[in-house]
């Protein structure tokens, strides 16, 4: 009994010390951000593993989102810093809003996500594309119903396919990244991959020898819009939104878009998206 008590006591002391440390570091970070209030550097997080939207080129983060963010922050006259934190860390950091102020990582705006986060106004129109082998008979999303399909988990492709195939359908395989999902298609483990159109096109461009084709089905896979991820109630939204609108209207956005995708964006769709 005495032994058990002392173990409990030791555990209690340990927890209290940890709590005290946590409180202390919170204080110090609070005071330091107050002292350089005038030129606050906004910290952005991203998961740079989603070429061509955001990816690492050696040790530098690049991609459409990265160039776009640069233009937005210039327009808004704000200092910022972009770090590759990975997906999970980005989500927790942005939700708490203590260390990071925002995230930009091709995050589609959905009602379920809006329960936790705020989003900037939409800045990018995307849709999902079906990727199959050239000799496949699959022609539309409806054809996928009783096929084996690979998607990247935590993407809208997953949500859409779960809607079509059923959330617990074992033929719907969710992978950690699109790269592994596409490898599964190559190995014949699945009949199709569903992913963002930009990702599918980039993959087909980089792997012409694999003989793949992309199928668009706008009736089943409607447009979706990316927004900048913000903590609930973020004051940054009021600063970002006008800058985003300005870039869309003055042609800067079109210029960046053409650099990355080689075609004209449909600006009206993005501006009119709710």
């Amino acid at each position: 009994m005495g032994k058990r008590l002392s173990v409990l006591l030791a555990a209690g002391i340990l927890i209290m010390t940890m709590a005290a440390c946590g409180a202390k570091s919170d204080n110090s970070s609070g005071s330091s951000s107050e002292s350089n209030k005038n030129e606050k550097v906004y910290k952005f997080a991203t998961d740079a593993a989603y070429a061509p939207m955001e990816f690492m080129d050696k040790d530098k983060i690049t991609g459409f989102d990265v160039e776009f963010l640069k233009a937005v922050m210039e327009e808004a006259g704000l200092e910022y810093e972009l770090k590759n934190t990975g997906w999970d860390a980005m989500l927790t950091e942005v939700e708490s809003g203590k260390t990071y102020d925002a995230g930009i990582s091709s995050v589609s705006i959905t009602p379920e996500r809006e329960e936790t986060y705020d989003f900037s106004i939409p800045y990018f129109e995307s849709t999902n594309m079906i990727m199959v082998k050239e000799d496949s008979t699959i022609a539309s999303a409806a054809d996928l119903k009783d096929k084996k399909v690979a998607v990247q988990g935590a993407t809208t492709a997953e949500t859409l396919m779960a809607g079509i195939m059923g959330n617990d359908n074992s033929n719907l395989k969710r992978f950690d990244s699109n790269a592994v999902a596409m490898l599964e298609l190559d190995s014949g483990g699945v009949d199709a991959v569903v992913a963002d159109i930009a990702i599918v096109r980039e993959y087909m461009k980089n792997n012409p020898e694999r003989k793949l084709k992309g199928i668009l089905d706008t009736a089943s896979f409607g447009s979706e819009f990316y927004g900048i991820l913000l903590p609930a109630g973020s004051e940054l939204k009021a600063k970002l939104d006008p800058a985003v609108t300005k870039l869309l209207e003055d042609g800067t956005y079109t210029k960046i878009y053409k650099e990355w995708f080689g075609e004209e964006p449909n600006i009206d769709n993005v501006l009119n998206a709710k």
Partner: protein
Amino acid sequence: MHFRFEIIFDYIPLLLKGAALTIGISALAIVLGSILGLVVSFGKMSTRWYFSWPISGYIHFFRGTPLYVQILIVHFGLVPACIGHTDAIVAAVTALALNSAAYTAEIYRAGIQSIDKGQTEAAQSLGMTSGQTMRFIILPQAVKRMIPAFGNEFIVLIKDSSLVALIAAPELMYWSNVMRGQYLRVWEPYLTAAFIYLILTYSLSKLLGWMEKRGVTG
């Protein structure tokens, strides 16, 4: 931090389904890994170089490379080469069993070599063959000494099985990832999964504790 219990309740059936597969994959991998590990340990102790060299290579490879990479190699290389197509669950069990065998082999070897040489000499003076000596004299004593080390290895294996979510084997971590994807929330799925893993590993260590006690007294 606001914790949303209602989304956990939404996913409880799927998380439990995933936990059942986690138990299945781990149990199979533990059994296959233990059997293979015994074979491997004899290979390692063999005085013939054409047994001991490849076996040493096997142990070095599976202990010295990340399980993450081993799972990918088994899923996209080994399994399609053997059965013609990919299969996440087959790959999961195979990768975990192959990995575990490399560790259990060393546990067997340490256990067997810890038994005093006098035991072997005594058995052989009674006219036992070396196979009989191993089966009736050495192994029963060695296994008792190995149980704590095996317990450790099995607990590690259960936790390592979470890595097979990588190849979309629909186990516990896989469904946690699905839950994370729907709501873009991190703590609800992962803390729930961690809690379920804790229940699994705690039950296993209790079971092994009971076996150890029974083995020592019985």
